[in-house]
């Protein structure tokens, strides 16, 4: 039984780490929804696009090379250089800011005042468009992403826990890095939102964009800024997930992991995204561990079930919704009639 307890502790810790990765994706949704009321369906594709761009810049890949070669009969694929990760990340951030400007200038500026469902539909279109552009720009082969992040079992934790419990815990180095990055990101975002002039303007827009407009806050600037920050968050998520699996088009599906986190944490709270991610991560991992274990569920119920994580995350979120429709940290919904 003691052994099962140690296993459960290991699963719990890994659930926390997985939750951080889910939260990284959910953060991008929260930022845009908070500032503009748009549920950005394209957030997962933004993570994919930013990761593709990062690898493309690092490897010196010529954008749109397939189209160029097919049109002009050339055979160019690479510039022949390799850009260090830090510079490539900087270059990608610039691309994501440009993307934010384009989105604002050519899509959402024309949709101000429209129903939320219209805005949501626009982001669905944006997702498909961005996925297609990413394919044309960088190709659809799976790309290895190596920005120097460590991966694999952390030997120190393995050794220390082995000496303490006689069982070495597995914690992935990449998950530890992701946790540190996520904590720094959240602290940075909270400080930005609370103490900077632009952050306060963003909150003002979130509260009442017409009132914010009347005191001289530029809606255009704030929305471009928010989409840029969401693009940066998408890049961070893309780096973490892309390092695990290679950069490939299924990266866009990570948005599926963010939805239960948002339902649970609330669509408007940055800390909510983190706490929601942690609850979902730990909840789904512990449930899977318990229900797939013949020594636990097998003994208790006489049967075991596996592959529960996908549906359990949504069930958990739905249970929370019954008691708190706005999520754990979401703003209370007040409807005036």
């Amino acid at each position, binding site marked *: 039984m003691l052994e099962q307890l140690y*296993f459960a502790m*290991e*699963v719990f810790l*890994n659930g926390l*780490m*997985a939750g951080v*990765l889910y939260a990284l994706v959910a953060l991008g949704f929260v930022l845009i929804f908070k500032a503009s009321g748009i549920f950005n369906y394209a957030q997962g594709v933004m993570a994919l696009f930013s990761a593709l761009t990062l690898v493309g810049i690092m490897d010196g890949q010529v954008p749109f090379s*397939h189209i160029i*070669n097919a049109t002009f*009969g050339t055979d160019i694929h690479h510039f022949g250089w390799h850009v260090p990760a830090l510079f490539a990340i900087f270059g990608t951030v610039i691309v994501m800011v440009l993307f934010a400007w384009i989105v604002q200038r050519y899509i959402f500026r024309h949709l101000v005042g429209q129903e939320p469902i219209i805005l949501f539909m626009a982001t669905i279109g944006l997702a498909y468009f961005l*996925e*297609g552009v990413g*394919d044309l720009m960088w190709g*659809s*082969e*799976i*790309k*290895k*992403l*190596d920005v120097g992040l460590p*991966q*694999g*079992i952390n030997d120190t934790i393995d050794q220390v826990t082995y000496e303490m419990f006689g069982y070495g815990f*597995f914690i*992935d180095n990449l998950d530890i890095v992701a946790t540190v990055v996520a904590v720094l990101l959240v602290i940075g975002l909270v400080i930005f939102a609370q103490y900077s002039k632009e952050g306060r303007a963003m909150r003002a827009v979130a509260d009442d964009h017409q009132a914010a407009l009347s005191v001289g806050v530029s809606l255009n600037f704030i929305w471009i800024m928010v989409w840029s920050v969401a693009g940066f968050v998408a890049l961070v998520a893309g780096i973490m*997930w892309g390092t*695990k*699996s*290679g950069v*490939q*088009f*299924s990266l*866009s*599906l*990570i948005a599926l*992991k963010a939805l239960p986190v948002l339902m649970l944490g609330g669509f408007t709270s940055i800390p909510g995204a983190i706490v929601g991610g942690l609850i979902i991560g730990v909840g789904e*991992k512990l449930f*899977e*561990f318990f229900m*797939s274990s013949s020594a636990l569920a097998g003994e208790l119920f006489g049967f075991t079930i*596996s*592959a529960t*994580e*996908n549906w359990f995350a949504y069930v958990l979120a739905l249970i929370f919704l019954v008691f708190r429709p706005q999520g754990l940290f979401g703003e209370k919904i007040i409807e005036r009639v």
Partner: protein
Amino acid sequence: MKMKLPAMALSALMIASPVMADLVFPSLSYRTGPYAAGGIPFADGYADYFTMLNARDGGIGGVEARVLECETGYNTEKGVECYESTKGEGALVYQPLSTGITYQLIPKATADGIAIHSMGYGRTSAANGKVFSNVFNYPANYWNGASGAINYLMSQGDISGKKVALVYHNSAYGKEPIRTLEELSAKHGYDLTLIPVDHPGQEQKSQWLQIRREKPDYVIMYGWGVMNQVAVQEAANIRFNMENFIGIWWSGSENDVLPAGEKANGYKALTFHGVGDDFPVFDDIKEHVVDAGNAAGAGDQIGTVLYNRGLYAAMLAAEAVKTAQEIHGVADINAAQMRDGMEALEITEDKMAALGLPGFGPSFKVSCENHGGPGLVGMTQWDAAAKEWTLISDFSPSDMDLIQPLIDEDSMAYAAENKIEPSC
């Protein structure tokens, strides 16, 4: 003006009419979406082989081959739409390239009299030609793969009392080998653990923590798409011995191992065809297709696992056309004649050598009763330093004594359910 009208009408009719003298091979490809990295090389290989036959030989038996590509995005509904929109073009054989699409097309294609070739995927029991008259899955199916993996492990040492874990995509495809592995477990005395991974498989921490706890001696994987890359990476993370990690052929392409880098070295995968580009046919592909600027893609996929699989599928289709042309004495065959050609197909070593593919695949003969071939499978291994797969075994027989009764049982159940009278 009056005199010109009939001529104009005739011209318009000629332009509007489909070109009759060609052999149509629909390609239900997926060059977009989450699985594009796997779909593109297969589609390229499939198209390039027919392009080469047209350029080098003037087609097949003097009739040009026409590849009709339709994008499915690996989506079952779109796959069915593609079938409906292309079948009227004179389609000879469909490669659905998805188990889900295959299941949907089996009754439709059978009713339409068009053949399906689900090579290494789809409904395994379709190997019973007495029930599935229009479906072929030669030269190997999922159950041959499961048996091939166990046979390989037994060739490395006694498997009795060992622990084998099956990590599988939690779908109809991934569940295919379970019954076979359970039967083999009873026969050979190994302990089988089933570990499902939900679609798409980007998060597998629970599964690999379980593997770390239970310490299986061997892991067999039936995965697809991102599930493969994450599994190889997670196996490396927990320092699972890659020598003891075997993937089915859909988990054994360059895509699956390159993201993990050096850590993927030694990973193994089953196969039913050759690897690499050291075959004479590739010289012809380069000369007549790539250098001529007629490659389906950028020409950079030649020799990759999935390109070779697409090329192999095209080669088998072309050989079936030749067989049909011989049987019926016509060059411009129809779908029913193509089906006959597939049912009488015989692939020999001499034939493969003459095609510029010596030793590329197993020798086999299709019959009315057996649409699945003999189920010969080989093993490949990844060399991370050289970034290439190597065939490390011959194409060896799987346990047909065990598999055939399973095929019969499942196919007869299908026949009873669909009121099909088995016949040959």
